[in-house]
């Protein structure tokens, strides 16, 4: 039997993960972490699947998914740029870094470009305070960033797209 009517194999992996926790309801957050890791974001169908498997009301699953900043309910861009806005980064000018990124990408933080290439996000503190201001490019932490450096990285991501169009 397939885990999900769509036949998508990722549901099978998620189901195995749920079994690892004996489908315990208190494992909801761990299960959502796994779901987001597999699917990139938590769409309604996925949340319903989790609710069904953990025998939880959908309201509870939706409530938890929307409470925590880490979970996203919309698809993310191909690349993610997370500007840390922790105190150490802030006093060292991370607001300028973010403003430069926003201007270059033409979107506000928390948004994704219309071509789905870039998601611009902010973090409250990633604990890289001694190398402030820090920016996380596709999961890689970069130290002591300036507006010029973030622009260069965004440009680098854009280039291969330009070449194909």
């Amino acid at each position, binding site marked *: 039997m397939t885990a999900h009517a769509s036949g998508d194999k990722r549901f099978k992996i998620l189901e195995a993960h749920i079994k690892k926790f004996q489908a315990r309801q208190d494992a909801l957050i761990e299960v959502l972490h796994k779901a987001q890791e597999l699917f990139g974001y938590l769409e309604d169908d996925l949340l319903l699947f989790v609710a069904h498997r953990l025998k939880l009301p959908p309201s509870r699953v939706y409530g938890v998914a929307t409470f925590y900043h880490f979970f996203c309910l919309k698809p993310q861009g191909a690349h993610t740029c997370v500007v840390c806005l922790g*105190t150490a980064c802030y*006093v060292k000018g991370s607001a300028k870094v973010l403003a430069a990124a926003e201007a270059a990408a033409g979107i506000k933080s928390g948004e994704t470009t219309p071509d789905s290439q870039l998601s611009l996000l902010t973090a409250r*503190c990633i604990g890289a305070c001694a190398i402030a201001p820090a920016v996380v490019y596709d999961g890689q*932490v970069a130290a002591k960033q300036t507006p010029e450096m973030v622009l260069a990285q965004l440009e680098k991501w854009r280039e291969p797209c330009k070449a194909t169009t």
Partner: protein
Amino acid sequence: MEGTMQGDDLAAIAEKHQGSRRKYCLRTCMSAGCMSSRADAIKKGLDAEVKAQGLEGEVEVRRVGCMGFCGLGPLVGLDGMKEREILFEHVTPEDAPAIIRAVQAKDHGLQVADPDHPFFSKQMRVVRANGGIIDPERIEDYVAANGYRALYHVLTDIRPAEVVEEITRSGLRGRGGAGFPTGLKWGTVAKSPGARKFVVCNGDEGDPGAYMDRSILESDPHLVLEGMAIAAYAVGADQGFLYVRAEYPLAISRLQTAIRQAKQLGLLGGGIFETPFTFNVDIRIGAGAFVCGEETALMASVEGRRGTPRPRPPFPAERGLWGCPTLINNVETFANIVPIINRGAAWYAGIGTERSKGTKVFALTGKVQNNGLIEVPMGITLRQIVEEMGGGAIGGAKVKAVQTGGPSGGCIPAEYLDTSVDYESLTKLGSIMGSGGMVVMDDSTNMVEIARFYMDFCRDESCGKCIPCRAGTVQMFELLEKILSRKATARDIAMLEELCDLVKHTSLCGLGQTAPNPVLSTLRFFRNEYTELLQPEPAGECAASGQ
């Protein structure tokens, strides 16, 4: 050796491990800070160079945790030289051949840090003793550094009540921020009736500008696990939860490795050291909610619910996870347990001030020359930390204030730098010890902007359960915006102060109760920066409140 373990086995592991040591050791920092500057490529480069030169029998390249001086990273330490250790700073992967030349006592031409620098010499490493020394991903390294002896001693020689007494006598207070006496908390959980009890380690280090706990978890995960196991024995728990932020992937993976290794050696699980004591630890990954650092919210999150706090009492010590007595301590608090058991409560109580004992780890960051992690005895002055260890402000600027305690703390102005760092002195100045973030601000920093920065944070992180915090933080933020856009009058300041008082005294949990602190402390010490931005009262209205 799998399954059961005895004291002799620990010694055997340590001895075997010592035997595998080489004459020289290149300690490569592989903590999150240095990893961002290609520390993994540096280690690969060193490994390759050692192999190329045929020095495998003489030189060990070891992955280690945080060495502290993160601002100089990536760092590589060299042990085994005739003189003293050498600490290479700002290392790049291309430096590998030069570092090997240094091992051979040849000219290397690399930048080296001065080990006599006050940044190092003023430190007292208790909690961070193994940081930057041992490989955090090898349990043998920890055992060889006297690891798990404290647990063995406790399980085989002393009764749980005596452990609680020892911790009480040490004077240790919670390192998460509030400074509650740890022994008292343990005693309450131990005395609370319950068929099942839990131990929870709070690793939801949410204060922006703080990364002590991340560093401890990444550099010495077994120290925290051993501390938790001792606590579990003392209070009568058999299950522990380690709650770690999702923002700390490296810490999570090292903890997973550590738990697996400890289980393999029988140091976690059933019948530890052939005693009836059983203890298991599960990791719970946070999902980016600052309020989950509050203990009742954290418990809700561990149970898989929205992380909203509930009123206390009942305190978690009486009714915690699933209604059972639960001990919740912060990462650094647990990391203090093993040194206290090993060296005695009297030794520990001899460090620090009358009411604040032991050491405290701080993340010294912001506009200061030397950025990094420091562990200092309580009672040291802020001036010693900021000016001597930190080297003062960057580029000849003047230090204006030091922010401690994150969004729950305050800004301490430069004229109070001679204040002693202890729980009471910092509270007296309207700030708090907090978890250990210490952000230095120079004279280019606008303090009203800082207040707005923190209020923006609290507004965003408020869980929304109680009205004073949910609505109050929004209103305070808007007033600060109004002041900064030069549209406010003296009345707005009065209203801001009134709101601060209201939110402080009527919010449900610590988040709301402390959210006004950054505003109150900047109003107290930098009021002129607020008044400079004010407009005169419109004519005909309340002339008395004009400036």
